Each structure stands twice: as structure tokens, then as C-alpha cells.
């Protein structure tokens, strides 16, 4: 299954890169730099999806107390942070030629940064807690609080920096751009799924090894 997924991902990524550079037309005002958009937005969506999965895993962990939901939430958070980091990296690269600066305290940028910080804190709770049931519980609580906080952050940052809004609220895309965007979404969907599977496998094996080590020591 993982192999099949890897093959699909390779094809989808190739198609995405091809579409971004060959199929999508050059944007009139921004020029070639606008092509960052396809990966930038796909990463942002992937991050948002991962954060939702952290919430889901956390709730299910607290309800069922099954280790696998804890691992699921943890792995989702790692991927969420990874994709957010990419958004925060690709954003400034795009912003510099268009807005003239790498960073603006602009609502969506700021919201992304705060969300990123929230989930880095979540990962710290996981990695600095003593391994065991208590840390899993704490992580789940933080995973839920962080997710509930995101809409509040979004709303309040919009209120705070309403005059700084630089992201367009809605974009009309050329059909070729639209197609490219969808191919990128698909490729990133595959990427998230594959990474998730690989990391979950790793974590499951680590847990099994740990369990074996404990039984042999006794």
C-alpha cells in the first residue's frame, strides 16, 4: 500500500511541478513569482487539515485511551508544523517582490505564525514530558485547546490588523491556473497521506520495541 502510494505521489508531484511551470500561464501583474502560489496555498491547506487531525486524534484519545490515537495526533501535529513552516517560508519569498518586504504583520501571516507557535508548544509538551499515559493526556488537552483557539486568533487578528489585509479575499483564476491548483492539491494530499503512513508505522514500531524492551527487562 505504501509503495503504491509512493508511486502515485511521485507521478502527482511530477504532474504538479510540470503544471506549475508549463501549463499555468504567467500571471500578468506579478510575473513568474506568482507560481509560488500553487505550493504555498497547498501547504497552507495541508497544515490546516493536519491541525484538524490533531484535534480529532486528541478527542478520540481522551475518549478511548488508545495509544494509536495519541500517535495519530502527534504525527499530525508534526506534519502540520512542517507544512506551516513551509508556508511561513514561501510566503516571504513571494512577499518580497510583491509587497516590497519579507514580512508584514498582515492578518493571515500573523494568524499562521501564532498557529505555528501553538503547535510547536504542543510538540514540546509531547517531547519534554515523561513518556507515558500522563503526557499523552496532557498533549490531548493542549491539542484540543489549540484547535479551539485558532478561530479566535483568526477573528481577533483580523480585527487588530484590518487595515493591513493584503491577501486577496477571493481570487478569480484562469481555468489553466485552476487546473494547476487542483493538481497541486491532489499531490499535496498524497504527500500528507504518505508521510503520515510512514511516520505512523515508525511510531508503532517504536512503541512495540519499547513494549518488548520493558517485558524482557522484567
Amino acid at each position, binding site marked *: 500500500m505504501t509503495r503504491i502510494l509512493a508511486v502515485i505521489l511521485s507521478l502527482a508531484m511530477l504532474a504538479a511541478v510540470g503544471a506549475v511551470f508549463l501549463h499555468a500561464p504567467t500571471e500578468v501583474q506579478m510575473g513568474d513569482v506568482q507560481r509560488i502560489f500553487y505550493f504555498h496555498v497547498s501547504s497552507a491547506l495541508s497544515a490546516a487539515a493536519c491541525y484538524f487531525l490533531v484535534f480529532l486524534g486528541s478527542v478520540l484519545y481522551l475518549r478511548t485511551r488508545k495509544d494509536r490515537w495519541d500517535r495519530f495526533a502527534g504525527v499530525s501535529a508534526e506534519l502540520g508544523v512542517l507544512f506551516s513552516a513551509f508556508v511561513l517560508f514561501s510566503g516571504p519569498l513571494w512577499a518580497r517582490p510583491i509587497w516590497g518586504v519579507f514580512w508584514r504583520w498582515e492578518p493571515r501571516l500573523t494568524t499562521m505564525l*501564532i498557529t505555528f507557535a501553538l503547535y510547536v508548544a504542543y510538540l514540546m*509538551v509531547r517531547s519534554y514530558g515523561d513518556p507515558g499515559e*500522563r503526557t499523552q*493526556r496532557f498533549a490531548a*488537552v493542549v491539542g484540543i*485547546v489549540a484547535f479551539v*483557539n485558532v478561530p479566535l486568533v483568526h477573528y481577533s*487578528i483580523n480585527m487588530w490588523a484590518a487595515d493591513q489585509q493584503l491577501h486577496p479575499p477571493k481570487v478569480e483564476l484562469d481555468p489553466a491556473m485552476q487546473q494547476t491548483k487542483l493538481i497541486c492539491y491532489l499531490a499535496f494530499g498524497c504527500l500528507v497521506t504518505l508521510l503520515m503512513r510512514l511516520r505512523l508505522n515508525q511510531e508503532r514500531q517504536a512503541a512495540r520495541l519499547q513494549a518488548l524492551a520493558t517485558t524482557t527487562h522484567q
Partner: protein
Amino acid sequence: MNDVPGIWTHARLLLRKDLMTEWRTKERLSPMVFFVLLVLLVYNFAFELGGAALWEIGPGVLWSSFVFASLFGLQRTFAAESTNDCLDALLAAPVERGALYLAKMMGNVLFLVGVQLLTLPLFGLFFNLTPGLYLLPLLVVFLLGSASVASIGTLFAAMASHSRLREFLLPLLVLPVLIPALISCVAATGFILAAGIPGRAVQFWPEELTLHVGMLALFAVVFSTLAWMLFDFVIEE
């Protein structure tokens, strides 16, 4: 009709115990007040307080010193319970966990509002703030701001006492979650202080204030409810 004491009775008793201990030892309020003084001192050298600084950076200075002091104070939320395993005794007692959260949270609100009221004169002194009735709405902002900090602060303080990072963990968790509330605290305080700008018609409750006070109330309600629901999972042993 109902002889079994409810959650509020338990919460009130626990709160009374904490307040009485604090009254006798003053081990949370005095260090926090002193800490705010020190932060203001540091800010003075960083920014040169006084003059127009009051309206430009005043609200930010005020709230950042409150937030730092509260992180300091929140660490102590469960300190009294950690000696002699008092927490275990409390958990073994037929008291709902929610009552413990409510008591600790209300205690934190009272401490924070206390610190704010005690240090506001210091802030006024350093910034040359003109005292007056126009400052009255600050009370609402202090109360709701403290409730916001205490709502999540109490939950995370219970967690931090068990982590290897300990003191480190609390700010890492509280600060990013608190940002929406902090924005409204600073903005609301700004609108209130602006009423004191010389030559400006004093407006007791500027219109924009309602939005920010509403936001603070929303934050406090959402997170104290959520924290109250999740508190069980944090202290179950």
C-alpha cells in the same frame, strides 16, 4: 432540600482556604506586585516612559507587565497543594474536580485583579497618567482580562507542575493561546487611556470598547468552559 453540598459550595470553600492562606503569608501577591514594578523599571530604560509614550506604548507596557507577572503567579496555583501530597488528599475527597478548577481559577482572577489595582498607581506615576473617572471602564477590562488569563492559565498550571520543563512550559503554552485576549486588552486599554489626552472630549465608554470587551468576554467564557471540561483529564492520577 438538597443536603449534599454542590460544586459551588466546594469551590467557595476551597477558594476561601486559598485566600486565607494568601492573607496570612502574602506569598503570591507581594512578589507579583514587586515584579510588575521591576518590569516597569526595565521598560523605562528600554523606551523612556512619560510624555506621549503613555498613549503610544502605555497599554502595551501595562499589559505585557501584567502578563509576565501573571505567568509568575500562575506557577504557584498548585504550589500549596504539592507539599505533603495535599493534592492527592483533595482528589480523594468527595469533591468534584470541576470545583477545584473553579476555585483555583477564581483565586487566580482575584490575585490578578489585585495585582492590577495595586500596580495601576505605579503605572500612573511613571507615565504621568492623569487620574480621573474616565479610568473606571479599566475595571471591566482588568476583570475580563484576568479571567481570560486565569481560564487557560489554571489549566496549564496544573499540567506544568508535572512536566520536566516545569516553569518553562507554562509561558510556552499560555502566551500563544492568550494572544486574542491580549490584543483586546491592549486595544481596550488604549481607547480608555485616549480619553485622557488633553483637549479631547472625555468619552466615558468609547464605542470601539464594546467590541473588545465583547471579545474578552467571549474568550473568558469559551476557555473557562473548555478548561473546566478538560480539567478532569489533567489531574486524574
